[in-house]
């Protein structure tokens, strides 16, 4: 089938033979695929465990903060190149100790690079394996890990180690609360 005009007879039949053989070969490959297992993971309903559990441990999903062991050192805020984390530390007038008034992460802007997780000394901020949170209102993606009036006393290393919540549970609560409240 080569379009060159100077087509010798041998080349003519060789083209036909090549075309026929390679088509047969290709058809054999595709037909053999009909007998092989498809690798589809039928995501929403036909899988045993929800995908969040089976993802590898280092997966970088939506960020979450375990405020109990957060020392308020603002290392993550400085480490983030596009400042998607913003923390307000306030000083209690009489008792002179600081507390965290606001800890917001903009999940819509975050680039999931993991630089903040490396910078955090106590591992308070960490990536969950959550991913399926499409919302129709972009404000739902603003995760605030310290509620409006609540005052969180920063954790000091020599304090007793508090009981930590499971990875992913905090993020899931905040996201669900956002979805219900705002739309």
């Amino acid at each position: 089938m080569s379009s060159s005009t100077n087509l010798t007879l041998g080349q003519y039949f060789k083209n036909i033979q090549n075309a026929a053989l390679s088509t047969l070969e290709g058809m054999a490959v595709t037909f053999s695929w009909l007998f092989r297992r498809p690798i589809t993971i039928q995501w929403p309903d036909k899988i045993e465990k929800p995908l969040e559990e089976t993802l590898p441990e280092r997966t970088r999903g939506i960020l979450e903060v375990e405020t109990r062991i957060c020392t308020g050192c603002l290392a993550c805020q400085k480490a983030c190149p596009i400042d998607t984390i913003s923390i307000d530390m306030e000083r209690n007038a009489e008792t002179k100790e600081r507390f965290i008034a606001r800890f917001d992460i903009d999940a819509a802007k975050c680039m999931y690079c993991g630089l903040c997780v490396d910078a955090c000394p106590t591992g308070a901020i960490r990536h969950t394996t959550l991913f399926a949170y499409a919302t129709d209102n972009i404000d739902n993606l603003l995760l605030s890990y310290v509620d409006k009036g609540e005052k969180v006393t920063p954790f000091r290393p020599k304090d007793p180690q508090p009981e930590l919540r499971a990875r992913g549970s905090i993020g899931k609560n905040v996201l669900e609360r956002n979805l219900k409240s705002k739309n």
Partner: protein
Amino acid sequence: MDVQSQINLIKGKFPNEVLENFATGTFVNAEKLKAICQFCRDNEELSMQVLTCMTAVDLGDHLELVYHLISYSKKHDLVLKVTLPRDNAVIDSVESVWKTADWQERECFDLFGVNFKNHPDLRRIMLPDDWQGHPLRKDYTPPTEYHGMSHTRKNPLIPEGQSATTENSNG
């Protein structure tokens, strides 16, 4: 052959064009750049067949054009630098020596405002044609809106109290 002998070779052909040199290459006079590049490419010992990268650096008071040349057969490379004034930087295009310079010079014109004499098709390459200013210069202030689309967006991280929206904070 190492950088120093390459520079001597060029100094032999263009005695007063080669200014002071540095570790990986040498400064060159702007007017003679095209001739030197032609020489680098055609000379057997040098045979710089490829212009790897041609870019500009804004050093505050003047612009610096950097030409990275490399030779695949001789496996050595060289850097040529040219200093240009900030405002009307003009230099002749080396597009006739290496065809790759066509697009790299268009990019340099687009982002730095360096004008290239007898370049076949000097148009903006990256930015829309009606964009004002050359972004990669240090004194560039981005426009506040383009074709009716504003540059600012309400930053959800800042509560309603403080009113600062995200200016172009690329300082």
